[in-house]
C-alpha cells in the first residue's frame, strides 16, 4: 500500500510580508512614495530597507501515500490553512516544492462558487465546473448530488432562499461527488446537523476505502482521531510531529513548547503598569499545577497573576477578563471577592493571586486573558493588558463530557454539566429496548 506516493512535500517554506494578508494591496501613490523613499534610502546607506517577514510555513516536508488518510492539526496560526492553500494551488510556496500525483479536489470552504441569485440546479453546474468537473460528469451525477443534499423539492429555487443547512448540504454534495484522487478538506464537517455530518464522514470513509488519499485539517480532535490513523502536527509553521494519531494528538493536547500560557516580565520598569502596580507574570495552570496552554474541559484550572505592589497605601485588586475567539467577553472576575485579602492592610512587594475556574464551565475554543489591576475610591486603572496569555479548551467526545459522544458543532459559550431528572411515566410493551437503555 505504501509504495506509491501521492503527495510529496519537500522543504516547503511560505513567507508573507507582515500585514500582506490583511491590508495587502497598496495604491499607486503608496508605491510611488515607497519607490522615492527606497531611492533616497539607497543614496544614504546603500542598504535596502529590510522587510518584516512572517514564515507561515518553515521547511515542511512529508509524504502521503495512496490510500492514506492524514490529519493535520495545530493551533491557530500554526500553518494548517497555509499548507492546504499551497497544496490546493491557491497560492505559491516561497521555497521548496510540492508534487501531487493525481487529480486534486480541494474543499477549503463549502459553497465555493455558489451564487445566491442562481437556483440550486444552476449552482450545482457552476460549482461543479469551478471545482473541475466536466459538464457530462455533473449531468451523470446530478440526481445523486441532489439526493445526497436532500434538496429535491427546492432545486429550482434560488439558493438565497435556502436555509444555511440546505445551502451547506448542497455545497458539500457537489464537492463529495468530485471523485478526485487526492481530497483536501478543511473543517467542512463543522456544518450541518448530526445526521448530515455522519454522512459526510461516511463519504470520507468511502473515499479512503477505495484507495483515495485524504488530507484532513481540523480543530476537532474527535473527528481527527476517528478518521485519521496518521496525524501531522504543525506548530509555528514547523512540522513538529508526524506519526500515529493517538500519539500525535496526545502530544498536541499536552504540548507546552513555546507556551502562550505563561508571560513573565523580568524588569519591573518595562512591565505594564504605573507607580502603584506593575505586572510580573500571568500564567495558566492545570489542576496539577503545570503550566499548559491546552486544557481538558472536564478538568478545573487556574489563572494566576503576579504583580509588584509598589505603593502600600493603595489597595489594588486584580481583575481577569476571559475573552473567546469571537471577541466575546465570557466573564470578568476580581480578587476582591476574597474578602479576607481585601480587608488586609497592604505591603509593598510581589503578590501572587490566582483564580480557580471549575471543570465543565466554558465551551471549547481559544480563550484569551486580559489582566487588569485597579483600585477604587478613586477609581484608577493601573494595568490593563489585553491578550497576555491564551489557552485552548478541548472537548474530546469521549462520552463523559457534556457533549457525550457527539463530535459535531456544539453551540453556546458555556458548557456546564447540568443535572437532568428523567422519569419514565409509562411503559409500552412495544418499546424498543434501546430507547430506555440510558434511563435508570
Amino acid at each position: 500500500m505504501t509504495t506509491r506516493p501521492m503527495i510529496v512535500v519537500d522543504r516547503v517554506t511560505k513567507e508573507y510580508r507582515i500585514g500582506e494578508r490583511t491590508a495587502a494591496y497598496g495604491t499607486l501613490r503608496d508605491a510611488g512614495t515607497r519607490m522615492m523613499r527606497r531611492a533616497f534610502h539607497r543614496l544614504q546607506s546603500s542598504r535596502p530597507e529590510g522587510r518584516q517577514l512572517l514564515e507561515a510555513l518553515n521547511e515542511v516536508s512529508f509524504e502521503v501515500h495512496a490510500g492514506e488518510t492524514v490529519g493535520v492539526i495545530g493551533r491557530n496560526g500554526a500553518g494548517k490553512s497555509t499548507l492546504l492553500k499551497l497544496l490546493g494551488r491557491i497560492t505559491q510556496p516561497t521555497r521548496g516544492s510540492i508534487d501531487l500525483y493525481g487529480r486534486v479536489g480541494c474543499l477549503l470552504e463549502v459553497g465555493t462558487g455558489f451564487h445566491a441569485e442562481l437556483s440550486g440546479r444552476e449552482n450545482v453546474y457552476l460549482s461543479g465546473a469551478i471545482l473541475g468537473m466536466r459538464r457530462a460528469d455533473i449531468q451523470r451525477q446530478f440526481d445523486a448530488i441532489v439526493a445526497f443534499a436532500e434538496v429535491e423539492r427546492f432545486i429550482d429555487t434560488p439558493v438565497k432562499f435556502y436555509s444555511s443547512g440546505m445551502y451547506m448540504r448542497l455545497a458539500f454534495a457537489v464537492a463529495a461527488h468530485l471523485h478526485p484522487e487526492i481530497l483536501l478538506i478543511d473543517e467542512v464537517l463543522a456544518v450541518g446537523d448530526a445526521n448530515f455530518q455522519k454522512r459526510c464522514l461516511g463519504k470520507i470513509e468511502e473515499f479512503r476505502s477505495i484507495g483515495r488519499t485524504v488530507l484532513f485539517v481540523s480543530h476537532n480532535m474527535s473527528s481527527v482521531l476517528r478518521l485519521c490513523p496518521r496525524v501531522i502536527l504543525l506548530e509555528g509553521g514547523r512540522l513538529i510531529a508526524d506519526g500515529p494519531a493517538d500519539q500525535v494528538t496526545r502530544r498536541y493536547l499536552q504540548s507546552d513548547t513555546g507556551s502562550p500560557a505563561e508571560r513573565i516580565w523580568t524588569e519591573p520598569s518595562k512591565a505594564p503598569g504605573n507607580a502603584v502596580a506593575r505586572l510580573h507574570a500571568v500564567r495558566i495552570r492545570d489542576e496539577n499545577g503545570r503550566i499548559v496552554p491546552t486544557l481538558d474541559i472536564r478538568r478545573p484550572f487556574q489563572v494566576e497573576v503576579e504583580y509588584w505592589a509598589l505603593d502600600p497605601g493603595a489597595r489594588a485588586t486584580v481583575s481577569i477578563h476571559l475573552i473567546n475567539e469571537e471577541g466575546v467577553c465570557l466573564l470578568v472576575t476580581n480578587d476582591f471577592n476574597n474578602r479576607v485579602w481585601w480587608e488586609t492592610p497592604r505591603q509593598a512587594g510581589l503578590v501572587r493571586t490566582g483564580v480557580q475556574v471549575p471543570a465543565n464551565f466554558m465551551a471549547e475554543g481559544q480563550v484569551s486573558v486580559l489582566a487588569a489591576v485597579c483600585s477604587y475610591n478613586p477609581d484608577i486603572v493601573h494595568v490593563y493588558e489585553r491578550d497576555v496569555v491564551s489557552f485552548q479548551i478541548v472537548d474530546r467526545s469521549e462520552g463523559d463530557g457534556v457533549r457525550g459522544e457527539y463530535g459535531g458543532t456544539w453551540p453556546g459559550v458555556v458548557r456546564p454539566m447540568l443535572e437532568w431528572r428523567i422519569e419514565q411515566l409509562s411503559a409500552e410493551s412495544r418499546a424498543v429496548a434501546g430507547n430506555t437503555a440510558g434511563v435508570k
Partner: protein
Amino acid sequence: MTTTTTMTTEALTPGAPAVHIAIRPTPPRIVDELREVWDHRELFYFLAWRDIQVRYKQTVLGVAWAVLQPLLAVIVSSLIFGRLAHMPSDGIAYPLFFYAGNLPWIFMASGVGASAASLVGSPNLITRVYFPRMIIPAAAVLSGLIDFLIAAAGLGFLMVRYRMAPSWQLLLAAPVLGLILLLTCAVGGWLAAVNVKYRDVRYVVPFFMQIWFFATPVIYPASLVPPQWRVLLALNPMVGFIDAFRAACFGRPFDWVTLAIATAVTFALLTLAIRTFRSIEQTFADYI
C-alpha cells in the same frame, strides 16, 4: 520525479497514466498554463453564463436592456452629431455610421470594465479554489459577447431601414470581432492583474476609457483626421478595428495597413498582459 512542468502525464502504474502536478516557487511554463486553460474551457462558458444570468435575473426588462442601450445612444448621437453638428460620415447615413462604430466600441469598453474588476470581485473563487486565473477576466469579456450579439440585431434593423444590402464582406466582421475580443482580453486582463495590487486602477479606468473613446473614430470618421496624424492614430488598435468592422458591414474597401498595425499592437499588448498576469497570478490569493 524532478520535473518542473506543471502537468505532465506519466505512467506511474502500468496502463494507468497519472496526473502529475508540480508546485514550485516559479510560475509554470506558459505552454503548460495554456494547456490548463484549455482543460478548463468549459469554465469559460459557465462563468460567462453565470454573469449573464445574474445580470438579467432581477431586471424588469431583462435582455431588452441590451437592445435599449445602443438604441438610445444612436438616437441621441444622431440628433446631436448628425442633425445639429452635421458630422460627416463617409457617405453613410449617420445613424448607421455611428451604430456600426459604437457596437464594437461598447463591446470592448464594457468588456475591459468588467474584466478589470473581475479578479477583485471574485475573492471567494481566488482564495478557495484553483483554476487558471486567466479564465476569470477572459470569461468576463466573453459574457459581453451575448450583449453584442443582441445589439447586433439593431444594426440589422438599421441596415434594412436605410436599405443597405450587406455584401459577402459581412463575413469578415467575425474575424475582426475576434481581434477586438483579443484586444479586450489583453487590456482587461492587464488591468485586472494590476488592480489586485493597486486598487486605484478602478478610478483610472473610466477616465482612461473616456479618453480612448475620443481618440477612436466612433462619432467622427477617421477621414476627418489630418493625414499626417493618421499613422499616430493607427497605433490605437480600435481605429483599425472599427474601420474594418464598418468596411465589413457596409461592403467598403478595407484599409489593410491600419488593420495590420492594429493587429500587431493587439498581439504586443496581449504578450505584455500575459507576462504581467503570470508574474503575479500565483500570489493573487495573498493580496485579495
